[in-house]
């Protein structure tokens, strides 16, 4: 199996703090709010602790002395403290609600922006569910941590330190008992925290895998239905969900251990203090009052210590989530603007040239393209022909830099495409893919895509060129009709025509069309062809073709085989001289001319593939 970059394969041994420290830039703008929240939490704590003290005063004073006259001011004081406590409760949440949700929003926006900038090769390798789970579940984990745990982690630490100082003032010996107990706690917790983070990470990864299966089950539902494999995938999903349950239970077990340690240690401290203090009192070295005060102080510290275990677990959850998010941020934007971008000299002529172009998919053994040399002169149309999987699509993807060459270079008007600003390059180069992707948006939006400045007239012009204007006009809301998955569904031919309209919008100087006519039926194909011919007259075009009819749009044909362009010429020339080309372009009976009369051809077809297979073999073994 290939390595999975989206699972935590190479787990860096960075500390939780180091991982979380990278949140710094997101925290900086909200540090004021965070500080205020911590202060509010501490003040609420203080108010909460003062209430019993005042209560004591009330009970010992006015009530015990049956002096109700002194009661009202003290009652008012308790009332004020009670209202203050509730108000501070509210304030802590109120003050964080906006900044914290904003933090999540900003992180998501940055993640989204980064992901959009990452090259196609990255997206091929990462399961989409893994990306989705980072953008939703992991970010929510971080948000929850910031909203609650961070505040109390800091506030409770403060309380803990203050409590220890108080203890020290009361009795250094009893404080030593507390401190001695806290040390193993820190050690134990840190051991468990590391293990906890590993398991938390595994849970999050597993959730990402689950999300991937969910996505596939939904997007591939037609295939699953056609083969009746719903139960099959359900079994796989349940298997993964069981695995997740198992990992979650491991996480729960670690958490339970952690929690138990944090619960039991303060109890042991109190027992120790009781034993030591009792002994000291017996020896006359300590008063009973001091012992009671010390134990009371220690019991106040019980909750901060206990919650510390929980909060640290949350911190590790958040650190594991952050780690997953940083992995995406750390993926380099390998296809980006050059440092010193060059500009194309206007007017753009659209001279396209491949020089010794080599290309390999990342992680692949050999090169897919092994030195392609090809020139498409301004205004010329070249058809790219070759067997399935020979690298035609890869070659076309190199022009708008969806992939980068691994050797050689691609030039537009004499400038290496890697030296141009990416947006500029993609403005000059118009593209249409084999499978046209439609977004759930209006027709207008789907045609304009990244060219928001295009006017409706321009959209209609592009639609007319692609012979799509007629059916778009017939849609219930015309250009505003929502199409794509959440809207009206279109036929394959209609989708392909919209993809063409998209490519020709804005009249790019270079057109790269990947089998633009594959899903069109005979009638529509003839119409689109006629329109395309018009467009191609003004633009330089590289057109991947599987059919003679598409080839006829081109001035010249280039045959791609074995990772190289092995022949260039007109259709007639190649038909006459090149066996491989003939084999590729011949219709059912293997002849280039398409005279077909019924069944006889079908029977001979059975023998043909073998001979064409040999042809292809000759070329690739060279």
């Amino acid at each position: 199996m290939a390595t999975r970059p989206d699972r935590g394969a190479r787990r860096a041994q960075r500390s939780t703090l180091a991982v979380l420290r990278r949140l710094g830039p997101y925290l900086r703008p909200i540090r004021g709010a965070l500080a205020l929240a911590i202060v509010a939490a501490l003040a609420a704590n203080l108010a909460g602790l003062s209430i019993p003290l005042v209560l004591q005063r009330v009970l010992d004073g006015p009530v015990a002395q049956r002096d109700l006259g002194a009661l009202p001011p003290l009652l008012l004081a308790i009332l004020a403290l009670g209202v203050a406590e509730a108000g501070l409760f509210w304030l802590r949440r109120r003050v964080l609600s906006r900044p914290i949700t904003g933090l999540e929003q900003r992180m998501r926006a940055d993640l989204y922006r980064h992901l959009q900038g990452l090259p196609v090769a990255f997206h091929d390798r990462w399961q989409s569910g893994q990306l989705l789970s980072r953008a939703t579940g992991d970010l929510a984990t971080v948000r929850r941590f910031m909203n609650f745990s961070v505040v109390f982690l800091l506030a409770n630490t403060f309380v803990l330190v203050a409590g220890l100082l108080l203890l020290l003032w009361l009795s250094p010996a009893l404080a030593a008992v507390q401190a001695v107990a806290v040390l193993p706690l820190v050690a134990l917790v840190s051991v468990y925290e590391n293990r906890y983070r590993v398991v938390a990470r595994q849970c999050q990864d597993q959730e990402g895998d689950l999300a991937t299966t969910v996505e596939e089950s939904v997007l591939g539902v037609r295939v699953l239905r056609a083969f009746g494999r719903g139960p099959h995938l359900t079994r796989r999903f349940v298997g993964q969900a069981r695995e997740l349950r198992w990992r979650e239970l491991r996480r729960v077990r670690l958490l339970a251990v952690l929690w138990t340690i944090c619960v039991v240690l303060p109890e042991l401290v109190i027992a120790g203090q009781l034993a030591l203090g009792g002994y000291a009192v017996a020896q006359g070295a300590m008063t009973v009052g001091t012992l009671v005060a010390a134990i009371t102080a220690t019991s106040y510290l019980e909750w901060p210590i206990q919650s510390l275990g929980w909060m640290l677990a949350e911190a590790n959850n958040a650190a594991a989530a952050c780690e997953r998010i940083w992995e995406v941020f750390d993926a380099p934007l390998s296809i980006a603007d050059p440092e010193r971008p060059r500009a194309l000299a206007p007017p753009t002529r659209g001279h396209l040239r491949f020089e010794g172009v080599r290309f390999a998919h990342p992680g692949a053994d050999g090169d897919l393209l092994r030195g392609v040399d090809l020139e498409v002169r301004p205004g010329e149309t070249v058809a790219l022909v070759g067997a399935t999987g020979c690298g035609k699509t890869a070659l076309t993807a190199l022009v708008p830099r969806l992939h980068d060459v691994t050797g050689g270079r691609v030039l537009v008007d004499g400038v290496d495409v890697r030296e141009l600003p990416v947006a500029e390059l993609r403005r000059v180069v118009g593209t249409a893919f084999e499978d046209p992707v439609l977004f759930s948006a209006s027709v207008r939006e789907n045609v304009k895509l990244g060219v928001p400045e295009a006017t409706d007239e321009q959209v209609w012009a592009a639609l007319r060129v692609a012979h799509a204007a007629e059916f778009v006009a017939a849609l219930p809301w015309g250009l505003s009709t929502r199409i794509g998955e959440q809207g009206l569904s279109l036929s394959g031919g209609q989708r392909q025509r919209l993809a063409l309209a998209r490519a020709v919008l804005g009249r790019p100087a270079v057109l790269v069309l990947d089998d633009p006519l594959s899903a069109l039926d005979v009638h529509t194909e003839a119409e689109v062809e006629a329109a395309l011919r018009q467009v191609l007259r003004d633009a330089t075009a590289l057109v991947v073709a599987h059919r003679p009819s598409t080839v006829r749009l081109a001035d010249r044909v280039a045959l791609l085989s074995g990772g190289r362009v092995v022949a260039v010429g007109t259709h007639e020339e190649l038909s006459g001289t090149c066996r491989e080309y003939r084999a590729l372009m011949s219709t059912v009976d293997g002849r280039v001319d398409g005279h077909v009369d019924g069944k006889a051809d079908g029977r001979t077809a059975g023998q043909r593939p073998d001979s064409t297979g040999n042809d292809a073999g000759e070329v690739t073994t060279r």
Partner: protein
Amino acid sequence: MSRGTTREAPQPRPPGERSDRPAGPPEPDESWRGVAAEDQDEVDHQVGARLQARSRRLLRSLLRPHTGGALLALLLVVAENVAQLTGPLLIAAAIDVGVPAALAGRPAPLTWHVGGYVGCGLAGAALRFAFLRLSGRIGQDVLLELRRRVFAHAQRLSLSFHESYTSGRMISRLTSDLSALDDLLEMGLDGLLSSALTVAGVAVLLVWLDPPLGLAVLATFVPLLLLARWFRRRSRSTYRRTRTTVARVIVQFTETMNGVRAVQAFRRERRNESIMDDLSADYRAAQQNSLLLVARFTASVRLVGNLTMVVVLAVGAWRVAHGQLELGLLAAFLLYLRKLYDPLDELAMVANAYSAAVAALEKISGVLEETPSVPEPAHPVPLPDPRGELRFSGVEFRYGEQGPLVLPPLDLHVPAGQTVALVGATGAGKSTLAKLVARFYDPIAGAVTLDGVDLRSVSDADLRRAVVMVTQESFLFEGTVADNIALGRPDASRAEIEEAATAVGAHEFVSALPDGYDTDVRKRGGRLSAGQRQLVAFARAFLAGPRVLVLDEATSSLDLPSERAVQAAMERVLADRTALIIAHRLSTVLVADRVLVMADGRIVEDGPPADLVAGRGRFARLHRAWLDSLAPTTS
């Protein structure tokens, strides 16, 4: 399949708009979405109550099998509380009895008390440990069960449901909505059991200590319940909004990532960012509302608690002053009062998690209550050895309830073993016909039969063994090439998989991949060309070896040699099988035994290709146009 309702057509975007992100808060301009049916996420208020009842029902049914476990958990919590409450008593005894005894030279009582305290602490910790593990297991079991239910149910639901529900929303149901329940289960059981227990225990104790004061304290439960009701009402719509907005974020996210090639090639990144900013801002606003609501709720609960304390103190002091109450009793009462309100905070948080989970469960239970419109037969007619004879008798069909009739009454008989090509313009009804044979939908009138058996009476397993459909979109799943081919028949051996691949001419390219058949296809087969993906899809179908094969534009991306290989394989492997082929290439059509030309859902021409070519109908015209398109190559 328009689900269109009327909505005002939005104004087009001003043409001069820049793609840069605006400096200020983004204007929520949604016109890019285009016009379609109203989002089904919005519910009116009457429906809301029904939705809540539905989601509570689901929650109950999920928890019912764990009644025993929950009781055991309760027992553990009770025992733990007892152990914890004993601790302070032992400390008091140690100071009151142990220390004086030690002063008197008898250290044994102090030792016993300290030992007892340690024992209580350890027992409490052990009980807590057991409780955490037990409640964790219950929570995870419930989640697993819910995941299994929703996933399996979604797989049973018909395509028409999936098409109208759309993938992004389904994904958010199965991912982020489930997480909301996760939160409730993680904190809920713990918080609920121990807090409810404490509140109940303390309440009883208070009434026992001093009935008048205790009843007065219980009276404060009235404002608390009113608060809780207010919170439930408000949080219902707030959390519903959260679920809806996060689903939109997920939809936008998955669409972008699945179409990232188009996004980059057409420089849609900036535009997408501003769209995502808007959606994310909506989500954030919903989240912020829920946080503010929680802030108000928990603070109010605390305020009620503190006010109660002041009132109790005032009344208590007055009564003590008048000799109606012991001072010590009042002190104890006040201490316990504090213990009553502390867990109420916890209960407020549980109520919050519960509200969030109920909002998510509303959406999930909506999916679960959906009945498949193409249901499994209750009493299936077995099809042990299908021959592949198809018959349409009086079949009518429309998409959706109000859609136009796509197929008017249609009669068609396809004898077993015949290869039938369907020809016609877009929208003529070819794909519909094919989908009815594959039972993606059921006809609204008439019946489609296989070997004389109505497809509605055939079990899904039998039907899929007999009929397989290959569509234009050749979706590849995560895994290796071999895994993907084996989807046709999961129990196939490697030799059989390779045989199927060889039959359709895919063996050559598969062998050339880095790990051959074990090569990871990467996301959606991103590394394979569209043609290669179609070959894998074909290999799947051949491996399945159905009696009836339905091909819907399944060869559109193949080059001619591949198409020939596929055709040859079809001739060989499926010579005696029934095939229904929709193709745009006449070369594919011409090898069929019979051609059906369709227009407006009707069959307008029917006959062997040679006969139709010789005639004067549409097919003959189509054929001439095709020959013309090839003509220049012969010149």
